[in-house]
């Protein structure tokens, strides 16, 4: 669309167009000066560096140094070319060729590569120039072992970025949060940008295709993404082919996973003994003599494998990379798997003396998966151990299938399923043209389609399906996305010593997102053998069981950024974005998101010259405003009608209609502003590098479904902008080369993050809200008891329950009677009992190299967070023990009271996990001319956890269902009773490069 408009403009001034075209040809004729540049690269001791990368800046034309450290590279234009030289463990160097044809380099070692080019929003910068808060993790620092997507690679690596894998379900994604919870409305975590395409999905990039990941942590760096950046931004840069050589790479591994932990239930003998001790009559179970470990029966050792093959290469004019990854993951629960085929193809070609560049990218991700019913674990908690899995004739034991919260979970696993077949296709193309030296313009087009085909089956034979005599669901969903983006970029270095540098970009983007689904459900299956594959076998079809829906929203943006630096001493960046979203009310569709940040390169000052121990010192400060709208469904501002079942009309049942929601025409942007101050330092001969950052992040006009008064409103909630929230925190990153010599290196890296979260407002003149009770931990006989409160002055995750002082001699819980009404532990006695947010999260990584060997060991954890041990509350009591199993614990036989959600079950969940450990060996392939690199490794994940928490695992998910569920993430810190055990994995892998 935009191109057409450009065309019109050219038509309007044909003369101008002609002259521009002429200028292209002229510049080509005058400046083209092909040349071959040679030279060598040495290290700090003058020893040749083998395998250093030499690259023509802004292209993929490059080469590597040979065994003597020498290189030779043909360039298009020896006058304007800038070479970039990089090698792991050394600072990258940039050098303008200026017509020379012999250039040699000396590299300086560094614990962090300050010359490294890092992705920022709509562009790149070297680390030294960055003024905002950007964390970059490159391939060599990724987590090892079995990984599904970028979040697995990053977990624990970036201070302030909390990635929670709460369950062992291999189909379930991680929950990501940057610098605390910043919204009430479905915190979706950071926005994902894949190779410059905003709003991507991590699952579409195979981990083996990722080169580096940048995390834009503060608002000044994220504000260029405007209304979707309040949760931060994660930029994923994929690998590209290089013009210098063709490469074939194979990455493969096999992993065995077992459940790290399972609930400690009574066995048959113990169950009988406890019942006897408590004087309970279990004669009804006299006929059952099995000794079944129900959790054990549901679990397995899951074998997973991945094979990734990539081809890459090119010429000085073009490059390509194609990859295919096959991943097959099997969970620790028997009916849990994920199989994924990922295809990715990138091609880039230059023309018109390298001034025109066209790129094409295609990606396909095909995923098959089966997600078990988590509630089957509830059956495993409840089923008495004396029941068998199978009857003597080999058929399933079904004797408890109608009992409350009971049934044969193994039968459920075998017969039921929730399968998905997902296809994610996208294609992107961009055309970039250098109009004059330093000024380029780019048009980018993107189209994606994500289609999900879901089948669910609950067999009439088992306890899940027998309620409806079998239930089948087929559901198809499609998400379409179209994106058009235009940018113009200008950069220039000037001044007598090239002390001034400017870099500016302006852009426009237009995107629309369309969602459609259709779903059919049927029940009452006389014949169940075809499952969801023949849904018409189901005899009963109710109104509302066949549905379809479709919606659409648009996002239009204008944005600009300018960066100026003086001698890398003083740097300033300013950005602004104007975003318009169709989701908002007519008067509030547009929002402006500005930012400014500055940095002072103190080490570049003259007065620092004498401080030789300081290699680099930079002070940064930035302020910016970002927005949030991703949790908001389209059409929320409008008064709409939709069908609502049927009504009775003289014997017939026509379709009824109703208002769908309270409309809010004033719906507008939720805004998050953040002030960030940081200090980057590299000291002691570049052995120690670190960053200290402080931030203050404030969200205002928070979107949420606020409760409103009925009557006056038709429904008791409305989507509105009311509350405010605050997050403040400190982050520290230290990176130290403890030992650095030819034979042996040891690098250690620690990141620490502290965040304090507080709700600062929940009411305004239109809407008044006191306490909002959230959290539904569920204990049998305790319906409607909540665990958390949202309240001004309190953080998200605030537990609000009766305080328990212990258990008295009669086995009764002693509760505090705070309201003095004589009844202790009742509704009025609830009080603040800790919160689920940690005071400190940390990661500690160590890497070692010794000759051809390399090793890493990575710990991570939290301090000061609380978790509600709900399984213990629900199943650690003897309340139902004469009909159901219970968890072993000290209170089991002494309790003579019902359990309820109280401080008794809220535990300190600080932990340290040995998350990742690996040892690798790289073979010497110098004598094998067809093999460039061969490495084998073994890795272990989740080896052990040190914690005082008595439940299964102290690291629990922020929410249990989907991120789009109401109140998702507002009651974190509950270990649910349908918890899916985490896995412990051992991997053997091979990397081969030909």
């Amino acid at each position: 669309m935009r191109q057409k408009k450009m065309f019109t403009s050219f038509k309007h001034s044909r003369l101008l167009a002609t002259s521009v075209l002429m200028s292209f040809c002229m510049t080509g004729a005058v400046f083209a000066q092909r040349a071959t540049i040679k030279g060598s690269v040495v290290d700090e001791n003058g020893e040749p560096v083998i395998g250093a990368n030499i690259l023509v800046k802004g292209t993929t034309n490059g080469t590597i140094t040979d065994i003597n450290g020498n290189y030779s590279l043909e360039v298009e234009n020896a006058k304007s070319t800038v070479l970039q030289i990089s090698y792991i463990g050394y600072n990258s160097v940039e050098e303008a060729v200026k017509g020379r044809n012999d250039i040699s380099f000396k590299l300086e070692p560094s614990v962090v590569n300050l010359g490294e080019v890092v992705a920022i929003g709509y562009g790149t910068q070297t680390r030294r120039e960055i003024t905002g808060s950007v964390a970059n993790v490159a391939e060599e620092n990724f987590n090892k072992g079995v990984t599904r997507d970028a979040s697995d690679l990053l977990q624990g690596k970036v201070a302030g970025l909390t990635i929670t894998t709460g369950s062992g379900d291999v189909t379930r994604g991680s929950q990501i949060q940057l610098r605390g919870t910043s919204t009430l409305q479905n915190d979706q975590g950071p926005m994902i940008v894949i190779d410059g395409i905003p709003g991507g999905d991590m699952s579409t990039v195979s981990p083996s295709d990722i080169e580096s990941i940048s995390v834009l942590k503060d608002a000044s760096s994220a504000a260029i993404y405007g209304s979707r950046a309040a949760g931060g931004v994660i930029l994923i840069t994929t690998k590209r082919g290089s013009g210098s050589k063709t490469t074939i790479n194979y990455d493969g591994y096999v992993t065995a996973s077992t459940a790290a932990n399972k609930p400690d239930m009574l066995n048959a003998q113990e169950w009988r003994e406890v019942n006897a001790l408590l004087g309970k009559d279990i004669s009804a179970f006299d006929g059952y003599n099995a000794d079944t470990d129900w959790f054990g029966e549901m679990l397995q050792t899951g074998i997973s494998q991945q094979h990734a093959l990539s081809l890459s290469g090119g010429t000085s004019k073009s490059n390509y990379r194609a990859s295919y990854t096959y991943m097959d993951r099997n969970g620790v629960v028997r009916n849990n798997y994920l199989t994924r085929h990922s295809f990715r193809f990138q091609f880039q070609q230059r023309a018109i003396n390298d001034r025109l560049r066209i790129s094409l990218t295609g990606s396909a991700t095909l995923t098959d998966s089966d997600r078990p019913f988590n509630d089957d674990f509830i059956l495993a908690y409840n089923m008495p151990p004396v029941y068998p899995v199978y009857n003597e004739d080999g058929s399933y034991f079904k004797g408890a299938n109608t009992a409350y919260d009971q049934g044969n979970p193994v039968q459920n696993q075998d017969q039921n399923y929730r399968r998905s077949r997902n296809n994610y296709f996208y294609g992107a193309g961009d055309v970039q043209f250098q109009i004059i030296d330093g000024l380029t313009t780019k048009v980018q087009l993107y189209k994606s389609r994500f289609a999900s085909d879901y089948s669910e089956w609950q067999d009439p034979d088992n306890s899940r399906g027998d309620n409806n005599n079998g239930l089948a669901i087929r559901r198809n969903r499609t998400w379409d996305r179209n994106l058009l983006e235009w940018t113009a970029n200008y950069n220039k270095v000037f001044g007598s010593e090239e002390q001034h540098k400017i870099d500016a970009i302006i852009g426009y983007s237009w995107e629309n997102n369309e969602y459609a689904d259709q779903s059919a459900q049927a029940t009452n299956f006389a014949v169940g053998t075809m499952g969801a594959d023949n849904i018409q076998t189901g005899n009963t079809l109710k109104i509302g069981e066949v549905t379809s829906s479709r919606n659409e929203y648009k996002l239009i943006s204008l944005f600009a950024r300018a960066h100026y630096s003086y001698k890398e001493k003083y740097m300033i960046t300013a950005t602004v974005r104007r975003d318009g979203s169709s989701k908002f009310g007519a008067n509030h569709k547009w929002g402006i998101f500005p930012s400014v940040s500055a940095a002072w390169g103190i080490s570049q000052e003259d007065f620092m010259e004498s401080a030789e121990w300081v290699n680099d010192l930079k002070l940064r400060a930035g302020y910016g405003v970002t927005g949030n709208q991703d949790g908001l469904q389209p059409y929320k501002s409008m008064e709409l009608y939709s069908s609502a079942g049927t009504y009775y009309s003289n014997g017939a049942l026509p379709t009824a209609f109703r208002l769908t929601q309270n409309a809010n025409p004033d719906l507008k942007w939720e805004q998050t502003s953040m002030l960030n101050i940081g200090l980057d330092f590299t000291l002691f001969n570049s052995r120690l590098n670190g960053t200290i950052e402080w931030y203050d992040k404030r969200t205002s006009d928070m979107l949420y479904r606020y409760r409103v008064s009925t009557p006056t409103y038709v429904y008791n909630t409305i989507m509105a902008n009311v509350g405010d929230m605050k997050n403040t925190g400190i982050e520290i990153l230290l990176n130290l080369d403890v030992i650095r010599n030819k034979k042996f290196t040891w690098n250690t890296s620690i990141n620490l993050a502290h965040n304090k979260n507080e709700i600062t407002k929940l009411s305004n003149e239109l809407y008044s809200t006191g306490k909002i009770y959230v959290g539904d931990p569920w204990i049998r006989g305790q319906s409607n008891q909540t665990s958390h409160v949202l309240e001004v002055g309190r953080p998200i995750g605030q537990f609000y329950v009766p305080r328990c002082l212990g258990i008295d001699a009669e086995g009764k819980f002693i509760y505090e009677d705070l309201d003095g009404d004589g009844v202790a532990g009742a509704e009025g006695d609830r009080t603040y009992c800790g919160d689920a947010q940690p005071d400190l999260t940390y990661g500690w990584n160590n890497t070692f190299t010794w000759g051809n060997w390399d090793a890493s060991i990575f710990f991570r954890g939290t301090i000061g967070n609380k978790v509600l041990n709900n399984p213990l509350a629900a199943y650690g009591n003897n309340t139902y023990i004469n009909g159901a199993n219970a968890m072993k614990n000290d209170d089991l036989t002494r309790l003579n009271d019902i359990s309820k959600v109280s401080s008794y079950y809220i535990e300190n969940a600080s932990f340290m996990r040995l998350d990742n450990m690996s040892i690798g060996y790289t073979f010497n392939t110098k004598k094998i001319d067809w093999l460039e690199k061969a490495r084998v490794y073994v890795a272990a994940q989740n080896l052990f956890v040190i914690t005082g928490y008595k439940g299964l695992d102290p690291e629990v998910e922020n929410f249990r269902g989907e991120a789009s569920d109401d109140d998702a993430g507002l009651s974190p810190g509950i270990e649910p009773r349908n918890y899916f055990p985490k896995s412990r994995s051992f991997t053997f892998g091979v990397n081969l490069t030909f």
Partner: protein
Amino acid sequence: MKKKTIISLLAGAALCFTMPSCMDLDETVYDKLPSDQFAQTEVEINALVGNAHNTLRRYWPNNFFYLSENIGSMAVTPSRRGGDWYDGGQYQLLYTHNFNSQISVIKGSWNAATESIGTCSATIYTLENSTVLTEEQKVSKIADVRGIRAFWIYVMMDYWGNIPLLTEYDPVDKVLPSCTPRQEVFNWLVQELNEIKDQCPAPTAENYACFTQGAAYTLLAKLYLNADAWGVTTGENNYQKVVEYCDKVMTMGYILEPVWKDNFSQTNNNSREAIFACAFSASDTENSNGLHFNTLHYKDNLAIGATFTANNGVCAQPDYVKLFPEDDPRREGSFLLGQQYNINTGEELVTDHGRLLNHTVDVTVIPTTEYPGTNWGQVEQEDGGRCWKWPYASDLTSAMENDFHVFRLADVYLMKAEALLRGGGSAAEATTLVNAIRERAYGNGDHNYTTVGLDEVQLERRLELAWEVTSRQDDIRFGCYETGMWSSVNCPRETGEYLKLLPISQDAWQVNPNLTQNPGYPPFSN
């Protein structure tokens, strides 16, 4: 050259940004209808009126079903062995009249009633602005929805007395109403019903599920019958008005269905006894009738031959069941009692606790299970008679087909009998009316009274109207509000005139600080 290049670029960009389509953010709505595009045909109007009728599905068998029968003397939701249904003690608090503004059934009922009133008001607003209806259609349909709304306001006035009376719907200007005193709500209801009583749809079988003229007159009769108990003044002879309105209803063509059970069957939409009905459908998943889940034991489905698993909740208060003579068919017709057998195998059903699934009339607290400071304790899973009035289909899964008759003619007979007795009218006529109900129930006249007093009327209401959301109101009127019908639990009810009104929901006050808590209860605070 360079400058011009930049200019051309900027010009192109500027041109683009001034083009409307490049900056167009209008929403296209695909799967719903914006309000300005809906209610353009009579079919669409009827779909909205039908939705207003469907608000009654939130009256029974949840919210007010629990409030009326637990607070009254009909039913109780006891805590079961192990603590099932203790649910923070809320059913104990309801039974013992220890009301507070946080009880979730109270909050849920307030919400159901107020949202239903809002739905009706919004529907009336749409109907009034409609241009597709004839004036006659408009008047009748609006009266129908106004009637539904009046019913909900009557329910709120009955339970809470002083309520926010806001009947205007404005999609833009939102006001937060304060509480209107019960007397004024009463006056408003009388006036509203008098305005619509003859505009409402005719009391014919075709208008089943509408708020008909029959429903309007019955509701007027209920207002006057309870006026004394509510402490409102009317300036009329209340009981004479009741008789007058009941007489009107009795001439509208309704009949006592010869077979009592036909009022409750899966085809009870054919009952000509029904005056005001809440229609359910087994094929509709919107607010469906899940009575079976609320009352039956986890394994009672096996006795029916159905596949659902119920939740073992509410059962009858034991002394209430004992009011039923063994030979009154309504005993078996109202309660599931005795040992249960698997309908397919004939085997005795056994609970998870290894006990025979025998629904006893008595509901007995297991010693040592009492909750601190009370005599309320846990009872066995199988204790108590279960609701057995609306027959359960053997292929029942999640939704029952049976409708609920909010008002039916038997109730009107008994209201008239009561009014005659209270107002000094003909005792003989009252006797005839009560006997008509008894004869229909027994199928013969052998159990007829020679003469009846208020005690007999009260008893007959209990025998006839079990589970039909009349218990609390009747108990207040007959002066036995403080006497539960579960004497063996030894949990005396709180006493105090103020307890005849429930506390207003804490949630309602949180979003509307203009509300004032009813007298006797602690004022609202956070």
